[in-house]
C-alpha cells in the first residue's frame, strides 16, 4: 500500500470556517491546501459557494 498524501491528514478538518459571503458556519473543509501556502479550501452548505480561508 502506498503512502497517502500527508496533506489530507492534517488537523482542523472539522473546524467550520465562517463563510465570507453569507457568514454561515455550516461549512466544510475540502482540502487543507489552497492556491497559496496560507490558504485552505472550503465549501459553504448555506449559500453553496466554495471559498478559501486564510490561516
Amino acid at each position, binding site marked *: 500500500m502506498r503512502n497517502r498524501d500527508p496533506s489530507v491528514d492534517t488537523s482542523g478538518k472539522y473546524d467550520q*470556517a*465562517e*463563510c*465570507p*459571503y453569507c457568514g454561515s458556519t455550516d461549512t466544510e473543509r475540502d482540502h487543507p491546501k489552497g*492556491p*497559496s*501556502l*496560507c*490558504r485552505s479550501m*472550503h465549501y459553504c452548505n448555506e449559500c453553496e*459557494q466554495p*471559498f*478559501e*480561508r*486564510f*490561516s
Partner: protein
Amino acid sequence: MSSEYERPERDDDDAMACGYTSYDSDDDVEYAEKESADNEVPATGRGAEGVERRVWEALYRVEDPEMPISIVDLGLIYGVDVDDGTATVDMTLTYTGCPARDMLLNEVKQSVAAVDGVETAEITLVWSPGWTVEMVTEQGKESLREFGLSV
C-alpha cells in the same frame, strides 16, 4: 522544425527594446534587513502629515500580488520615516519564503521614490514580529471577504 503548417508571422524580426526606456529587473533591488521592529506593528500612517503622508498614500496604492488588498491593510508595513528627503520604509512579508519578495520590495521602493519630496527610498525588511492574519486591518478583512476569503 516542421514546415507543414504556417506559423503566425512575426511583426518585425529586428524589433528591439525601446532605447528610451530603462528596464530594471526586480532581482537587483537593494534593501536592508533588520532583526526586529522598534515600534508597535503594523503601522497604518494614521495622522501622518506632509511628505510622510504622501509616502503612506503611495503605499496604500500598492496591492498584494495575489489578492485585491493594499499591503498596508494586509499589515505588511511596520514603519515609515522621512528625514531630509530620505524615506525609510520598514516592512515584512507574509512568510519568509515569499516568492514575490523582490517584486514587492521593488514595487514599494519605486512607488515611494516617486513621491513628491522624496529623493531616496530605502526599504528595510523586518522578520520580527512575524506577520499573522491578526495584522490585517478591518478594511482589509472586508476586502478579503469580498474576494471570497474567510478571515
